[in-house]
């Protein structure tokens, strides 16, 4: 369909969205896993606070989250300035910033999914691994991690999907610069802001949905393979 043909700019937005969603998902993975583990397994002072902070991006209107990111990680922001001067890492108005915004917005979803999985792991299996000589870290790597794979996959796909749809925080934090920070949702938003833009918005929306669906199906297949491997083997009825 001709109607579906993308302009070069739109193509850029698609590519950029994919890149941003991918990296947002990947970069938040270790942090998310560590946080989920901490929340699932340990009791410590300030646990409620940490838990609250994790959930903040969900609770706050995305615009506010974006603004807070701008204040913290912007060029003039407390952390942004430090990172820039010390390591040359710049988030402001870069695709990396968009990835950061998406990662932050998806973080509570990712952490929750992983945490739920971690909480259902049978700790007696971890003990068994311990008696067989595995150090706590090896236990995590060889027992806990494989067992929580379904949760990890769920967390990743949620983070990815959220990143594909995130718009409020991104556009507020890193603006809407074509080729740099203009993601699919931002492009869709602009379409909705002008007369006659509906068709364009619809087109990009379909593309975004198609991509996310593909990711979703892939994740389901993966999860199914994992599940069949770990399955309890209960007799089928």
């Amino acid at each position, binding site marked *: 369909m001709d109607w579906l043909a993308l302009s070069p700019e739109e193509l850029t937005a698609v590519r950029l969205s994919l890149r941003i969603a991918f990296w947002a998902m990947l970069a938040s993975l270790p942090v998310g896993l560590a946080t989920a583990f901490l929340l699932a397994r340990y009791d410590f002072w300030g646990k409620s606070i940490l838990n609250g902070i994790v959930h903040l991006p969900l609770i706050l209107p995305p615009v506010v989250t974006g603004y807070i990111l701008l204040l913290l990680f912007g060029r003039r922001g407390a952390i942004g300035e430090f990172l820039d001067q010390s390591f040359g890492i710049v988030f402001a108005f870069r695709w990396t910033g968009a990835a950061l915004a998406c990662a932050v917005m998806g973080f509570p979803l990712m952490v929750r999914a992983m945490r739920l999985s971690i909480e259902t792991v049978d700790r007696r299996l971890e003990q068994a691994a311990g*008696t067989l000589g595995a150090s706590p870290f090896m236990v995590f790597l060889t027992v806990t991690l494989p067992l929580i794979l379904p949760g990890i996959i769920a967390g990743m796909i949620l983070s990815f999907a959220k990143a594909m749809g995130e718009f409020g925080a991104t556009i507020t934090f890193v603006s809407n610069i074509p080729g740099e920070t203009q993601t699919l949702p931002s492009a869709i938003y602009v379409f909705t802001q002008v007369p006659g833009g509906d068709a364009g918005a619809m087109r990009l929306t379909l593309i975004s949905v198609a991509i996310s669906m593909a990711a979703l199906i892939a994740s389901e297949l993966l999860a199914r393979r994992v599940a069949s491997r770990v399955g309890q083997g209960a007799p089928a009825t």
Partner: protein
Amino acid sequence: MTLTVDVSHRQGDFTLEVRFESEGNLTALFGRSGSGKTTLVNIVAGLIRPVRGRVALGDLVLLDSERGIFVPPHRRRIGYVFQEGRLFPHLSVRQNLLYGRWFAPSGERREALDTVIDLLGIASLLERRPGSLSGGEKQRVAIGRALLASPRLLLMDEPLASLDEGRKGEILPYIERLRDQMRIPILYVSHAVGEVARLASTLVLLNEGRVAAAGPTADIMGRLDLFPMTGRAEAGAVLETRIEAHEADYGLTLLRSAAGMIRVPRIDMEAGTPVRVRIRARDVMLALERPSGISALNILEATVAELRPGKGPIVDIRLDCAGTPLLARVTRRSVETLGLRPGLALYAVVKSVAFERRSIAAGTEAGGEAGGEAADL
């Protein structure tokens, strides 16, 4: 190696207060359901950190609450066969078996994978996942996993409970080999008196979280007062003997004991080797005159030492065979008919076939010197 345990622990309403020391290579924990066996084994494994206590294996202190010592489980190098399997569901049987290997110091990989797989009859299961195994198959894999970790102490919590006799008969000699040849100390939980009697040099009898009795298996199995806990049907005495000769033609072995000569199915060990045999009270028949023309091969001279009527028609009788105690169990009717009374001299008759494989164990009091198997009946 001496296993020293002296611990106190509370969980819910249950208090464990256990103290024993075992020189034996295989120490059996015996006791009713809920008496604290698994709890104790978990403490030795380091999975439970007791309120107070000390656990040591030879010189190696695993736990000392006073000195603040607590070796974490993964540094204890303990192979633990759990009561409930605990196989890794995400790994194949093979990977489960090899799991402990990754972490064992490579110099100390004692057991060959193939040997263990053969022994346990799990060759056809290697690529399967634990989820689809039968109960006994799971248990066998769990045993294999613990063995292959090359542990310096083996904890076995009812390892054979879900196995058939045939399989048990194959695995028991292997455990004996571990005990005697590999000299791996084993802490063994079982409800099966036969198993315990056969395997354990030392027996610790737990009752409601406390040690009811601890000591050489023979002593404890023979104590009439412990029958409620050890099980009456299996009660019997243990004779310390030495192999005198083999009767190759008949597949029998002649044992010399203080009580006299005993013929048992062949034991594949050299003459002179000390052997412990257990004679169950229910297998001993009494005769006032030396019987002749009977199939029973063992006739021992004895004197009645003590009569212990139980409830019902049964009387347990302690005999004295030239200083060695022997237990017999007869009906009250026989006691009257034969006029049994302390001091009466008579003959104790025992069939050779009564010496099942499980009632014969090689070894001195201090634990087996060299392993060996009794002929399979």
